[in-house]
């Protein structure tokens, strides 16, 4: 028998406001993306042309296939650019609002920092800092809960990957001091 009288309720105190102003429109982002893809197509196409994009005695040269793919990518991006520019006259929706942008950055920046720290402190120390910091500062979760969760999660990852499955992760000075 179902117990539907029981409810699960999870609140989100930091939810983005519905009336937050738009930072950038989808149309503008589409134009920028198409321009970037066009630049990528030109760069890769030029490199493949340099590598050799024609036919020699042994068959197609190494750059042959990717060169024509660059042409297709360039064509698609150019078409997308024209479509986006024409559609710009009509109102295009918001790509991200200010409140949403803040929340995205609240994940992205710690992730970026985590990648940087992994390089110098090793993956496990960086993971501990990311989880504890994120729970405490973004989620406003009690310090002891944040530290405990971060410690247990990192320890489980270490035991699972480094010990049980022998998948060696990047290490830093702490692991070196502990002889690993």
């Amino acid at each position: 028998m179902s117990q539907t009288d029981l409810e699960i309720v999870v609140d989100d105190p930091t939810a983005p406001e519905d009336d937050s102003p738009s930072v950038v429109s989808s149309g503008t982002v589409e134009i920028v993306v198409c321009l970037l893809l066009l630049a990528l197509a030109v760069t890769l196409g030029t490199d493949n042309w340099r590598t050799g994009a024609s036919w020699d005695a042994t068959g197609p040269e190494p750059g042959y296939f990717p060169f024509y793919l660059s042409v297709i990518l360039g064509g698609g991006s150019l078409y997308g650019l024209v479509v986006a520019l024409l559609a710009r006259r009509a109102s295009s929706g918001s790509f991200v609002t200010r409140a949403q942008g803040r929340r995205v950055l609240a994940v992205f920046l710690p992730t970026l920092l985590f990648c940087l720290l992994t390089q110098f402190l090793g993956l496990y120390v960086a993971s501990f800092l990311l989880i504890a910091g994120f729970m405490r500062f973004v989620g406003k979760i009690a310090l002891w809960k944040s530290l405990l969760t971060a410690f247990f999660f990192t320890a489980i990852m270490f035991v699972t990957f480094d010990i049980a499955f022998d998948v060696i992760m990047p290490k830093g000075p702490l692991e070196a001091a502990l002889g690993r």
Partner: protein
Amino acid sequence: MEAFGLLLHGFAVLLTWKTVLLMMVGLVLGIFVGVLPGLGGPNGVAILLPLTFTMDPTSAIVMLSCIYWGALFGGAITSILFNIPGEAWSVATTFDGYPMAQQGRAAEALTAAFTSSFIGSLVAVLLITFLAPMISSFALKFGPPEFFAVYLLTFCSFVGLGREAKHKTVISMSLGLLLAGIGMDTVSGNLRMTFGSPELLRGINFLVAVIGLFGISEILLTMEERLALRGHAASISLRVVLSVWKDLPKYWVTLLRSSFIGCWLGITPGGAIAASFMGYNLAKRFAKDPESFGKGRIEGVFAPETAAHASGTSALLPMLALGIPGSGTAAILLGGLMVWGLNPGPLLFVEHKDFVWGLIASMYLGNVVGLVLVLTTVPIFASILRVPFAAVAPMIVVSCAIGAYAIQNAMFDIWLMLGFGIVGYVFKKIGIPLAPFTLALVLGNRAEDAFRLSMIGSGGTLKVFWSNGLVGSITTLAIVLLFWPVIDGLLGRLGWTGAGHNRGTIKN
């Protein structure tokens, strides 16, 4: 009958305590990733892939495929109890599943969802059992032109039948194919598009790309939204299960129709999302009282779940038989096979019989175990959603980084993962589909090799792709599918078809 004997052999390979335990672990992890917001089948499989690196290929693929089944099951829990589709293919399940939960019939809706998932998967696995060996033995006659034609057919069907703007699918696919070409050219040994960077010599591993595209980008997208939820808790009793099962024969037409739709859209790269909507819409169209749909009708749960699971499972058929995945997740499983040096395609059935039939047997067993597991553990998995997202999000980020690093033991791949995370976030928001990108990234080198070998064999003429009836038919079909929207429009003007209707479209 040969297939039946080989399947029994597969069960013999599979039925060890170790493999069954791994199957259970895979299913639990799968349901977990299916339930959690910000995770799903494709990234769940990609992130957990490193766990399997030290296993033998059979154990590894059994665990990975069980993660996949588990994620398929898990999606229904949040759809029905919280009106939040854990996966895009669970959207149609919310239409009637959530109203059922509101009426106090959550247990009934969940039982219906899990049972129909099981039925859909079972039909697809039966199809794989009997059809895959036939297709693979036929495909043994294929040469490079035939293989290239099949790859072309896959790519063209994504462009022609996709729901997104055509140029966006073309951009996604050509970008994936280009990135697949970075590094050492497999034919000549020359370096391409590396720009002197030693890190790019290895090329871009598609699993790293997938972890970024699906894992990191999904976290960013999930954070954007309001993460508050209010829903029902439910547990399922044996009485409810038996009562739903007793009524199953009444819905045999819906179940069979949805299974057929699912299998069809899984084999052609239609996808589970299109299958679930098509299954739901047809059930509604053929119902005596279509207006009762959306108000808590059990058929509204049976139809999309059966179709989605039949589609998700049958997407493995072209992967096993031809080496061409029918979905994003199948592409990731294919990547997993390559990690262990297995080459999916027709030769797999000849060279690695134990592996293939062990995998097919695991599909049967995994679904049975998954059904029992999910029916008995719903309250536990539903309560996972009580964990604040601020705790879940950094753990997923760490798991993604571990997955990305472990594939090639390269710090550069963690940065690459982050880069693909941004690309995935932006692409998803402006409607550039990611499935063709993934497919192109995994098939890029094979497609290029097949093309170059065909061209070398023919002395450089494209006529090789029409050199015999088989290759000519596949190539022509590919071109027809590429220009299908134009052809459909012309036929519609002539009054021959109902052009403009949303028929047979692919949601990538």
